[in-house]
């Protein structure tokens, strides 16, 4: 009986030490280490009316391999790898948006399509709560959607901004909140890009003209 009580006390003290000191240790561990994030997500197919247009889509290498690297003073090195996830996001939206969206290996391979669409990555910015004194990790992405006719002549350049945020209070003290927060904010930014593209791209005059001609 005595042994059991002693064991219980030892266990309690150990738990207490853990509860009290682990947060301090985690703060040291995650406090200024930055984050290394590889963004992975599957954006659902948008529920939108399909446009009766056949388009070719060309993804250039800068979009496919994009990695953002930045050092924040007092907060460490940050690396956000977006490259591999962007192509499937755009493909999913264009597949839902157009009667047919054909992936092109080159800009010259657009025979039989009515327009060629080229998503261009322009910029990524992020902020962590310690910088903005808010409770959010935030990610801003700026894309540009270039529209060409089948002969390769530029018809339109449409800006596509996207924003995602993630509440730091959604992560426990044991979690690497910078990594998890930036991952979630990036995923939300990609969803925002997909949502904006689904809603507003059909209203671009040059796309609306193609629909009218179809």
């Amino acid at each position: 009986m005595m042994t059991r009580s002693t064991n219980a006390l030892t266990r309690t003290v150990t738990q207490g030490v853990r509860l009290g000191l682990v947060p301090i240790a985690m703060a040291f561990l995650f406090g200024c280490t930055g984050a290394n994030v590889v963004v992975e997500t599957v954006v659902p197919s948008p529920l939108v009316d399909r446009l009766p247009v056949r388009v070719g889509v060309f993804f250039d290498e800068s979009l496919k391999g994009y990695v953002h690297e930045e050092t924040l003073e007092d907060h460490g090195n940050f690396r956000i790898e977006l490259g591999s996830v962007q192509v499937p996001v755009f493909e999913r939206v264009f597949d839902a948006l157009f009667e047919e969206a054909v992936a092109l290996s080159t800009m010259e391979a657009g025979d039989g399509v009515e327009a060629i669409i080229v998503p261009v990555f322009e910029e990524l910015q992020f902020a962590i709560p310690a910088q903005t004194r808010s409770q959010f990790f935030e990610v801003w992405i700026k894309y540009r959607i270039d529209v060409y006719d089948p002969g390769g002549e530029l018809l339109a350049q449409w800006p596509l901004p996207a924003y995602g945020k993630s509440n730091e209070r959604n992560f426990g003290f044991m979690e690497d909140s910078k990594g998890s927060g930036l991952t979630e904010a990036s995923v939300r930014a990609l969803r925002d890009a997909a949502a904006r593209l689904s809603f507003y791209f059909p209203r671009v005059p040059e796309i609306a003209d193609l629909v009218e001609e179809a």
Partner: protein
Amino acid sequence: MRDLYLRVGPSRAACARAPLLKALLIGAIGLSAMLLSGCVTATVQQVREAHTGIGEDDRVVVLGRRHKSRNETETDFIHCVSDQITKKSDGVKVMTENEFVDSVFPWFEPLTAPLDVDDLTNVISRPLVAERIDEIGVRYLVWIEGDTVRSSEAGRLTCNIISGAIPACIGFLSWDSDSNYEASIWDVKSGIHAGRVSAEASGTSFVPAVVVPIPIIAQVRQSACTGLSDQLREFLASES
């Protein structure tokens, strides 16, 4: 219209004895201390604007507002309300927030989610969206706003490494937490606002430390979650 007030947890009078409790807690470090939690008071209110009731195939979705730049409801809280309605209900089927927003993408993203029932009517007037909502059987949308904040932090706790590399802490910390949440219930089938349920909870947490820190945490958010989900379940299932 009917208002209902509920109170759970110890009374405010019990909480007013906090200074005495603080003194007792410092002397009571031991096995029992690990089992203590701070006192919490919670109040739940309901305003009904329309009849509800739920059919066998109807489902409910609990959603958080994501368009605001501050006081965003914690994801854990949304999951908690969703889980508690599912666990304790007899007949209320809950669809997860992620499953719902994915199935109607992109109509319930922060950029596009309807802010009132008029917006909702516009969204579900689109054949593709109406067909999908019908397919997944969603009858009620429960939008939750609000959060839990800490206030009145006091005290100091210092930890040092003493001889033999043994860590030791001494001091006393306390803080108050306040939860304030409101749920708006939309009837998707009728396109109306069926009512509101709100939950407020507050409590004080303590961490006394004599060598070992002993956190005695007031489960404020959990109390608000329990109060809100119990009332929501009753609201949805009741036909009055």
